[in-house]
């Protein structure tokens, strides 16, 4: 059997498995209604959100059209702030660069990063002989289960408290009861024992303001603050499509992300522009103070600049990964992240999967799953026309299959 056919068959088998998995459907039904309610409340409390989202659509168009220029501006700003900036053309480049910074035999703690999933960062760093810990609770669970994420914002939505108790009991060698507050406290204690031992903290980025070189990180758990602030070295892996022109623009994008993810105000928003520093003694600037001594920013291309030049498919890059569409998608509602590639899900995710590293053969079964029903477009803050994009992606697939 050919490799592309094997990929298709594996995907199909997993989809069928997912639709019959009771944990997947239970987790989904809980998440869907909770998310819908939260999102509705947020929209009611902040009635300007739809208008703000329209503006963010224009900002995203502008960012994608001026990608090369924004990469230059952001790099210059970050360097000015004392960060080291790298441009990774491919996933392999990103892994090599990060691998060189980290080395081996280190302890690495990581905040949630989709780009990290995209390039396979955890496995790579573990392969170099490092101890790696995901610190987002859902990703921590995902790491223990050795599986891919199920959603952008809620990667382990299908895992029950009983399963978590089992995983923790196994990890710690002592009985952990299936009691959610106890489980969370147990994970907290475990991770806190790691933050202060860690040599390197990793993060992704929700938005990067080019004019100030500021990385926005949105979270509730406090794990990103710990991961990016406690270890002496912070490495941020940033997909270049995340760049906004100005700090003001970045705030708008960030607000739309968290509101459409269902949060009135995320508990923490970190804005990181460089390594820590002080000029408190004689006004002489010294890099490295209480926070990290070094900030390394890896700007990840991995197909993005090519996709940004595509007159039709570039629209997929407008996606801000709020995940609102996924909970509404009739297919996703039954399959969760099995309808997707290793990092990106659903219809838009099939385009990102095709052009950001994984390749068309990985995207074929995902692209042909989409119903083109346009419900996602209806809830998308930036109104991505998935139906049009999917027809176009299928057209590219057909052309490639024939040549």
């Amino acid at each position, binding site marked *: 059997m050919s490799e*592309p056919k094997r990929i298709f068959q594996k995907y199909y088998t997993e989809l069928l498995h997912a639709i019959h998995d009771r944990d997947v459907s239970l987790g989904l039904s809980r998440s869907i209604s909770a998310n819908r309610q939260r999102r509705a409340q947020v929209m009611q409390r902040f009635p300007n959100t739809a208008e703000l989202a329209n503006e963010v659509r224009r900002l995203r168009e502008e960012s994608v059209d001026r990608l090369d220029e924004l990469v230059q501006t952001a790099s210059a700003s970050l360097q000015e702030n004392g960060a080291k900036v790298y441009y990774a053309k491919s996933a392999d480049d990103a892994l090599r660069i990060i691998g060189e910074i980290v080395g081996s035999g280190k302890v690495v703690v990581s905040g949630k990063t989709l780009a990290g999933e995209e390039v396979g960062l955890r496995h790579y760093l573990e392969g170099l002989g490092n101890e790696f810990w995901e610190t987002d609770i859902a990703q921590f669970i995902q790491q223990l289960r050795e599986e891919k994420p199920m959603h952008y914002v809620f990667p382990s939505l299908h895992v029950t408290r009983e399963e978590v108790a089992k995983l923790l009991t196994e990890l710690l060698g002592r009985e952990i009861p299936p009691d959610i507050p106890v489980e969370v406290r147990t994970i907290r204690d475990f991770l806190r024992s790691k933050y202060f031992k860690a040599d390197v903290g990793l993060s992704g980025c929700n938005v990067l303001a080019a004019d100030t070189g500021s990385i926005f990180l949105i979270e509730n758990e406090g794990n990103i603050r710990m991961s990016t602030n406690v270890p002496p070295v912070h490495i941020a892996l940033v997909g270049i499509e995340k760049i906004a022109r100005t700090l003001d623009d970045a705030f708008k994008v960030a607000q739309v992300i968290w509101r459409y993810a269902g949060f009135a105000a995320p508990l923490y928003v970190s804005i990181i522009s460089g390594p820590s520093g002080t000029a408190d003694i004689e006004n002489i600037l010294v890099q490295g103070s209480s926070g990290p001594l070094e900030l390394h920013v890896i700007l990840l291309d991995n197909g993005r600049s090519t996709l940004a030049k595509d007159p039709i498919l570039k629209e997929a890059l407008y996606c801000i990964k709020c995940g609102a569409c996924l909970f509404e998608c009739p297919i996703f509602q039954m399959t969760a992240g099995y309808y997707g590639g290793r990092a990106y899900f659903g219809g838009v995710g099939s385009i990102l999967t095709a052009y950001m590293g994984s390749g068309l053969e990985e995207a*074929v079964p995902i692209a042909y799953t989409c*119903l083109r*029903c346009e*419900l996602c477009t*209806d809830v998308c803050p930036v109104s991505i026309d998935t139906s049009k994009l999917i027809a176009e992606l299928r057209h590219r697939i*057909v052309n490639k299959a024939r040549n």
Partner: protein
Amino acid sequence: MSDKLYIPPVLQIICENTSKWGNPLGLASKDCAVWASGLQIPNKGKTILYTGCEYQMTSRIQSLVEVLKRVKFEDTAFAVFKGLQSVAGRFGVDSMKIFTRAGGGDSKTYDRILRMSALTLRRLEVDFSYLDGELYSGALLYEYGLFEEFGKQAERVVNQLKAEGVMKIIALTPHSAEIFQQVYPQFIDNFDFEVSPYVCTVAEALKKAGMELSLPKPLTLTLHDPCRLARALKVTEEPREVLQAIRNLDLREVASNKGSTICCGAPCKTIYPELSELVASKRVEELLATGAEAAVTLCPFCYSNLTGKALTVVDFIEIVYQALGAEDVGA
């Protein structure tokens, strides 16, 4: 990657059939026109009722799905085109037999709906004709990314429309209305036919005719808005206008309606039939929760995919026809 991309087998089947037969399921053009026999619809005129062969194909989709289940992951190199019949033959299935069997009861239902659609227009004094050898719009070709074949099909369709002197298309199905209104202009220069979805033509004609609409007995209905009609074409008010004007008809809205309607699952039926089935079941549950006696819809694919479960499904065309107090269609 040196291996060729793997494409779902249904693509080859619909490609082959459309080029050979003019429609994706390989129906002979006389089969597509069976419904119109005896109705004496003119076959030439400025305004046509365009069925797009979709109702005609619907009863055969299940057989296609059965055949496809057998060919799943069989070797289907794209260069080797196989018609449905030859594929079916290789797997020990007599495709004509399944077709006849599946087509039996079902195709009668769809033919009746087609007859009603025409008789309703006549009753509402809408002038229309039905083209001899009407061609398929190519909607599925576009949907599956077969743009080259779609472009060719669109050209054939436009040539036929021009040759017959057509100016206005009453598109019976949402898929064909969408494809004409929104996709043909991207593939065909100066595509300047007037296109009206059937429901819009009916709503307009009803207003003009000022006719009384009434069902013989009280009926509660819920409306399943087809995605293509409600979201792609943004037609959500016309079906309601018509249905609400019918005496004895109580319309109960489902929670996810109009622009937030939920797909019936039909689009992935030929590739992931199990998923399609589950999406349909979920939608059926929502429609049943309204407590309505039946759900009315306006798309043959929605009709077919939602049928066969705990829910009674009727076509908008059937309801309007009945509400006009019309006699049996004689099919």
